[in-house]
């Protein structure tokens, strides 16, 4: 069972916060973001920042707008070279003044009022800007014959009247959500506790479920996962209660009030802490509440909550897994909750871990590896002496010393602490450099700032080596588990949709890595336009093709469109401009990124999610999917025609299933793309479309004998608002 960021997308929300505070998110996006803010303290902090920035920006720039409006409308001509938002003087340029001297208000009225109707109020003022514009136009028209390139009858802009009539009011008047955020940020809503109870000692109501470690220093260090207690699966209601209790803990850590924070723990919790001889700082939860938090920020993110169980003594227990900012899931926290006066409080807690293993050999020349790297929470380091004399393995800072006879092995457990330490052998004669090394224990920091991606110049040539055709016939299972989890009812296929919440979470990558991904995609775009299908295939891992095979996708090696989930250019002249964003490091070490493809300067409505794996130093596409909702539509065709004869699609992804109930073969010609789907009598066929333009079209059948009026249908394609705003 996995809980966690329900309906949220972890660090993805950062890029939406500015839009949230300028009111341009769709209502669905706003609701999703708001729900996420309720569960994410760090995001609320950032949201509060944007709220403050928005208010200050409005004050600065709107004040400037007002000044600009008033100064030019009543302007003596004064020039300034100062930064505009610092100026206080009314301004008008010398050039504009010179133009305006060619006429005055009365002249303008005389010239233009009969032609253009009632003069606007500003024409009553000398040097009024609207009047200036009319003067400029009048001069231009009179002198150079400047005209709009058309007249009322044949050169109107191509804006459909229906589109004009159906437009809704834009989001300019959307209320600022700042006040809601302010409420959300004050969510440590508990009564402060008496800190003297932190000194409680004595017997506890429940026996320790978590086995007591051997010594006080192990109290925080953790309990092996296989030593943790087990129980029966909890109910959904209990899971909800545990989730709320964990969120409350995080909110109160963010709040920073020790007396409120301590109220989330039972009296027995402190008795247990004191029994362990813990030396903790009551004002710093890090000292007594084991909860992994990014080292660059004191506030932990909401962990994934797994394995919520009811212990034999009736208490609830859960594993709290910090999925954000970590390379592995081997290190986590185990919490036991007891109900006290109707509240679920923390009764026990310990850092826990799945043991990782590291093997090192030492012989008479030294260690087999002198630069050890440990990245997981706890690692069993086994050293084997393959030499002919006794050697040792010593890390002074960790109090580790193993003396190994020839042929013997020793194991020592390295508990997570960020450090770079020296190790060596201290046996006489082990003095050469090979007997000295460094042990780095690293815990990757969470980076909540999106990487800066430098726009790639548009690539026009595909300068990559083609893949071998054998890549299309690879078999077996992929080496990595798929992180793009498709819905159970999704139809197998390349164009399978995936919901946004199921996009994996992770920490942002460095600018360097993000730009490598961006460069890779830019080159892919060039190869899609100008390269061969085998060149395009070289951007994908073998596992990618294994996954396609597992999904039942039939790949045509000569047609990149059969295996690339990207809208392809209609022609070589079509300009592809991919937009790469949300580049994150996934927990399994791969990279995830959102790809939105632009055409001739316009962004596609649809977007894709790619997962990249590093193969020989190059990031290759390992998984990919379209993201968004697929609308499934059915159409029946018989010998008399289609039923229904009117279809209404959005510009999102539409999967059409055509069933032939007639006695001969019929077809359906999709009018936007021209794709044809033939259906034999009694059969059903499916096809997926992404209509790229809106409008009203006529669909037909091209099969012999299908000439009656029943074989003419109307397809109305409308904009998909959700898809439009999803980018």
């Amino acid at each position: 069972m996995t809980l966690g960021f329900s309906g949220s997308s972890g660090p993805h929300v950062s890029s939406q916060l500015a839009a949230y505070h300028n009111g341009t998110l769709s209502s669905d996006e706003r609701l999703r973001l708001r729900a996420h803010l309720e569960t994410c303290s760090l995001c609320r902090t950032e949201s509060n920042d944007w709220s403050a920035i928005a208010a200050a920006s409005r004050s600065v720039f709107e004040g400037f707008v007002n000044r600009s409006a008033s100064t030019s409308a009543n302007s003596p001509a004064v020039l300034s070279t100062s930064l505009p938002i610092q100026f206080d003087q009314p301004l008008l340029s010398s050039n504009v003044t010179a133009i305006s001297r060619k006429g005055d208000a009365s002249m303008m009225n005389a010239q233009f009022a009969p032609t253009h109707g009632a003069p606007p109020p500003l024409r009553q003022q000398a040097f009024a800007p609207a009047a200036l514009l009319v003067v400029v136009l009048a001069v231009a028209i009179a002198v150079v014959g400047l005209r709009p390139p058309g007249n009322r009858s044949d050169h109107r802009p191509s804006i459909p009247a229906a589109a004009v009539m159906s437009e809704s009011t834009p989001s300019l008047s959307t209320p600022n959500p700042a006040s809601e955020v302010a409420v959300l940020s004050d969510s440590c809503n508990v009564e402060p506790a008496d800190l003297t109870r932190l000194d409680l000692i004595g017997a506890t109501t429940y026996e320790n479920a978590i086995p007591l470690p051997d010594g006080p220093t192990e109290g925080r260090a953790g309990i092996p996962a296989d030593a943790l207690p087990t129980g029966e699966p909890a109910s959904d209601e209990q899971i909800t209660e545990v989730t709320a209790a964990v969120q409350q803990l995080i909110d109160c850590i963010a709040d920073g009030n020790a007396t409120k924070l301590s109220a989330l723990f039972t009296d027995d919790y402190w008795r247990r802490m004191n029994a362990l001889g813990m030396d903790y700082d009551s004002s710093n939860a890090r000292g007594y509440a084991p909860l992994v938090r990014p080292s660059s920020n004191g506030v932990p993110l909401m962990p994934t909550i797994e394995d919520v169980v009811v212990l034999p003594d009736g208490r609830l227990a859960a594993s709290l897994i910090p999925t954000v900012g970590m390379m592995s899931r081997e290190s986590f926290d185990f919490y036991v909750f007891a109900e006290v006066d109707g509240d679920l409080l923390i009764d026990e807690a310990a850092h826990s871990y799945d043991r990782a293993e590291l093997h090192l050999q030492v012989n008479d020349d030294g260690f087999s590896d002198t630069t050890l790297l440990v990245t997981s929470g706890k690692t069993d380091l086994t050293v084997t002496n393959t030499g002919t004399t006794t050697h040792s393995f010593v890390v002074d800072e960790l109090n580790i010393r193993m003396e190994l006879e020839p042929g013997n092995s020793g194991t020592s457990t390295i508990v997570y602490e960020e450090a770079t330490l020296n190790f060596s052998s201290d046996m006489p004669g082990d003095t050469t450099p090979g007997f000295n090394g460094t042990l780095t224990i690293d815990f990757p920091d969470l980076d909540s700032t999106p990487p800066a991606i430098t726009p790639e110049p548009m690539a026009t040539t595909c300068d990559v080596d083609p893949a071998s055709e054998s890549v299309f016939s690879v078999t077996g299972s992929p080496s990595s588990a798929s992180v793009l989890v498709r819905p159970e009812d999704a139809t197998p296929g390349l164009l399978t949709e995936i919901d946004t919440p199921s996009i994996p979470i992770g920490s942002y990558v460095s600018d360097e890595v993000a730009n490598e991904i961006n460069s890779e995609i830019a080159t892919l775009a060039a190869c899609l336009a100008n390269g061969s299908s085998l060149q395009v295939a070289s951007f994908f891992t073998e596992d990618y093709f294994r996954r396609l095979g597992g999904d039942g996708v039939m790949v045509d090696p000569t047609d990149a469109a059969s295996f690339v989930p990207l809208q392809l250019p209609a022609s070589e002249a079509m300009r592809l401009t991919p937009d790469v964003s949300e580049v994150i490091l996934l927990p399994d070490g791969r990279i995830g990124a959102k790809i939105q493809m632009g055409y001739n300067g316009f962004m596609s409505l649809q977007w894709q999610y790619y997962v990249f794996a590093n193969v020989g130093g190059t990031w290759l596409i390992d998984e990919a999917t379209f993201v968004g909702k697929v609308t499934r539509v059915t159409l029946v065709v018989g010998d008399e025609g289609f039923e229904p004869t009117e279809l209404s699609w959005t510009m999102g992804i539409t999967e059409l299933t055509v069933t032939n109930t007639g006695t001969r073969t019929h077809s359906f010609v999709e009018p936007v793309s021209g794709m044809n789907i033939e259906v034999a009598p009694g059969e059903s066929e499916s096809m997926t479309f992404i209509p790229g333009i809106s409008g009203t079209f006529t669909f037909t059948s091209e099969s012999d004998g299908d000439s009656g009026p029943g074989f003419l249908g109307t397809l109305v394609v409308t904009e998909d608002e959700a898809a439009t705003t999803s980018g």
Partner: protein
Amino acid sequence: MRRESRGQGMARVEHSTALERELLVSIAGGDASALTALYEQMRPRLVAYLSLIVRDNGVAEEVLQDTFLAVWRGASRFRDESSVRSWVFAIARRRAIDRLRSMNDRFESDTGLAAHIDARPGPEELAISSATQSELESAIRQLPRIHQEVLMLLFAYELSYSELAAVLAVPIGTVKSRISNARRALRRELHRRGSIQL
């Protein structure tokens, strides 16, 4: 059978107000009063925006005239693929940069603008919201132009990301990067001024 059709995804990115569109239809039909009406509606914010770019209100007014001449001439080419306001703002921005280019030493290309982006790691643990409103306003006034531009378009004009992308002529991913960089630069400025502290 399973085949896939990939449409030629011409995104109709944003919505315009009905009024702006109607005005543009009239402008394309040769109605100068519609141009005046659109001008009066958009002028205050446009001139403020242009002043931010060219740093001279007089030049901004000149560019404004150029912009509306371009609107007059180009109205029939508007294809409803962006909002009217982002279309006009994009024209204005290009005209402003052209004007700066013609002024030689005052020209700053987009590449030059991007050089102002402060991508150095900042004091990330500091909350901007802990600064006072006046401290924030003062710091915003001292930001490089590229950051001011983003904040102005975002919060004073409430442009969506896709409208911002259209105005700045950059991908949406770059828009997001610029937004993030603006926040980072503001935090750094506040920290430098001692408005927020470790």
